[in-house]
């Protein structure tokens, strides 16, 4: 990792930031993150971990303008599902639009108000999972996030929470540049579903630290919106206790730059982690670049990890996948599966993939695969020979290609909402 010199453009990202208010444990965690960040510097263009995705837009002092498109859509997406909604408008919490920060089996607080308080569980976690996730690969934007996040939610689930919590992002300001940091603690035997919906800002940096205690379950379903010029940089750090479950699904439409990093560590035996993403982009109106970067560390016995990443790209859209499964010595009976695939709808689009397995245990079953392909001509002809018009037939095959990712969503109503959203996108991007 090259250290950015103060004179380099990278430094300007930091120059533009001021330290958010709030002392106590939060202040201390920010100080620690800041020194981590100073130690590693921001990513330089020649950084191996940023080989396929240029960090320049994320390093720039100010975001490129991004026209908002879909606030109303984000609000209406899951109309059929009862949920507790927390609304951030360009990164600023909107109390009026949000539900009360209370729910059965839940403790919810805002990061912006947490500094002076004594929320032990959050104090123990904030920046801690991020710091753990800095090795072996540094993630400077995550440290930047811990140091500079202005708000976010702290959620603790102490029981099986049936009503999902939804963080709704409304993007209205074409120059917004929010930094948000969420902390989730799922206690022993508890469960929580968290929805994140919408474009966070013109450019955003969000981080989430998720600590799932033994026998706990956390489900994360994210729709990143469809703003074309958005620059989205996210990190999710998860630490999994014994027999716990972590499932994260992301749907990403368009986006000039999206970089989603998942860093998952198994610390207890018999746990399960599934990470999936369906990304779809059409470069005709605006550039589209989507990067999924995943790092799974198996450091416990008999854990299962499954990663399913699929991208549909056209008109010069670019997809990136960097996925690593690290199985440490002693992590026997590990079951690791990773698939990353791209469906290129034309010759202009491209998919760059770097799947990696690093295994130090001898009794494991790990597999990974990465493919790039076009629409299957035989399937297309079969559909057309039955009278399905070419465009509709192509859409059906696109949805079929992505289906394996959507199957990772446990809740059928939510999955159907997202399927619908994909279909609408396909209608809009016909031809």
């Amino acid at each position, binding site marked *: 990792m090259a250290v950015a010199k103060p004179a380099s453009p990278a430094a300007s990202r930091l120059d533009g930031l001021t330290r958010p208010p709030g002392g106590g444990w939060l202040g201390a965690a920010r100080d620690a993150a800041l020194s981590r960040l100073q130690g590693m510097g921001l990513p330089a263009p020649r950084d191996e971990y940023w080989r396929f995705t240029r960090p320049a837009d994320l390093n720039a002092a100010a975001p490129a303008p991004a026209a908002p498109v879909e606030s109303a859509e984000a609000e209406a997406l899951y109309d059929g599902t009862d949920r507790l909604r927390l609304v951030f408008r360009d990164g600023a919490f909107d109390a009026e639009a949000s539900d009360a920060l209370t729910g059965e089996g839940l403790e919810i607080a805002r990061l912006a108000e947490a500094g002076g308080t004594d929320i032990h569980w959050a104090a123990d976690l904030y920046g801690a999972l991020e710091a753990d996730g800095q090795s072996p690969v540094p993630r400077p934007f995550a440290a930047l996030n811990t140091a500079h996040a202005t708000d976010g939610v702290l959620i603790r689930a102490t029981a099986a929470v049936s009503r999902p919590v939804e963080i709704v992002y409304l993007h209205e300001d074409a120059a917004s540049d929010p930094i948000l940091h969420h902390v989730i603690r799922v206690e022993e035997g508890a469960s929580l579903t968290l929805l994140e919906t919408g474009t966070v800002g013109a450019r955003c940096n969000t981080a989430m630290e998720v600590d799932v205690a033994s026998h706990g379950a956390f489900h994360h379903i994210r729709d990143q919106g469809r703003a074309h010029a958005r620059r989205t940089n996210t990190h999710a750090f998860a630490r999994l206790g014994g027999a716990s479950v972590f499932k994260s699904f992301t749907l990403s439409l368009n986006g000039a730059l999206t970089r989603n990093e998942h860093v998952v560590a198994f610390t207890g035996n018999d746990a399960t982690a599934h990470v999936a993403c369906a990304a779809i982009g059409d470069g005709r109106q605006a550039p589209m670049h989507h990067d999924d970067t995943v790092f799974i560390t198996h450091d416990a016995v008999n854990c299962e990890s499954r990663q399913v990443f699929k991208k549909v790209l056209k008109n010069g859209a670019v997809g990136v996948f960097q996925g690593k499964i690290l199985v440490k010595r002693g992590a026997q009976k590990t079951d690791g599966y990773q698939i990353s695939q791209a469906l290129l709808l034309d010759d202009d689009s491209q998919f760059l993939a770097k799947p990696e397995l690093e295994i130090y245990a001898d009794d494991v079953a790990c597999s990974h695969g990465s493919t790039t392909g076009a629409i299957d*001509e*035989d*399937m297309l*002809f*079969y*559909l*057309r*020979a*039955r*009278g*399905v*018009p*070419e465009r*509709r*037939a192509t859409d*059906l*095959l696109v*949805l*079929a*290609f*992505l*289906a*394996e990712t959507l199957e990772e969503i446990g809740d059928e109503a939510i999955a159907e909402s997202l399927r619908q959203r994909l279909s609408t996108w396909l209608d809009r991007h016909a031809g």
Partner: protein
Amino acid sequence: MLEIKNLQVKLEEEDKQILKGVDLTVEAGKVHAIMGPNGSGKSTLSYVLAGRDGYEVTGGSASLLGEDILDMDPEARAAAGMFLAFQYPVEIPGVGNMTFMRTAVNAQRKARGEEEMSSAEFLKVVRARAKDLQIDAEMLKRPVNVGFSGGEKKRNEILQMAMLEPKLCILDETDSGLDVDAMKLVAQGVNALRSPDRAFLVITHYQRLLDHIAPDVVHIMSAGRIVKSGGPDLALEVEKNGYGDILKESA
């Protein structure tokens, strides 16, 4: 119904002529069978009629109900009444069989300016037709042809044909891979659809299917041409003596 005149077809990618002047007229209400040695061009003829890519028509014409079809998209031909039961039905993971059939039925109706079928109506009809072909509900739910046995795939083709109610049904070796009972089911499915304004072109190697679907005319195809046409007896002759004599006399 179907009128093919001196149809000549070569492969697009290679300099290989496959159909070397096919003449064939199938009248409404009739069942025509095509037999012929492996590689003689039977499937190629069916693909070219259905509109598959990869072939170049170098001469001749083909029309369905008086309309020239060779320049039409496959979906337009389907809407005009063309149906091909594939020799090798394609598996489509991720697309449900029901979704597929309903999409196809309604796409054709829409193309013809007819009213689309409601979900409820579609469900009722598809269940009844599936029952006739002994296709269980489980198979309707699965992705198109995925994990279907050879015989199940063929029955699924006939189910699609029953749902789409085409004008011209081309069956390319629908009998191959079928057990005796499935053969009867398929034949019943075909016979149920026989009507004065529908025609069938049945490609087969065996007399067995023709026992159940009595053809009006039998054609023998060889090396890209129809070399002999006759009544049902012609199929019996092939069954008994093979193609040797027929090919010799036509050469």
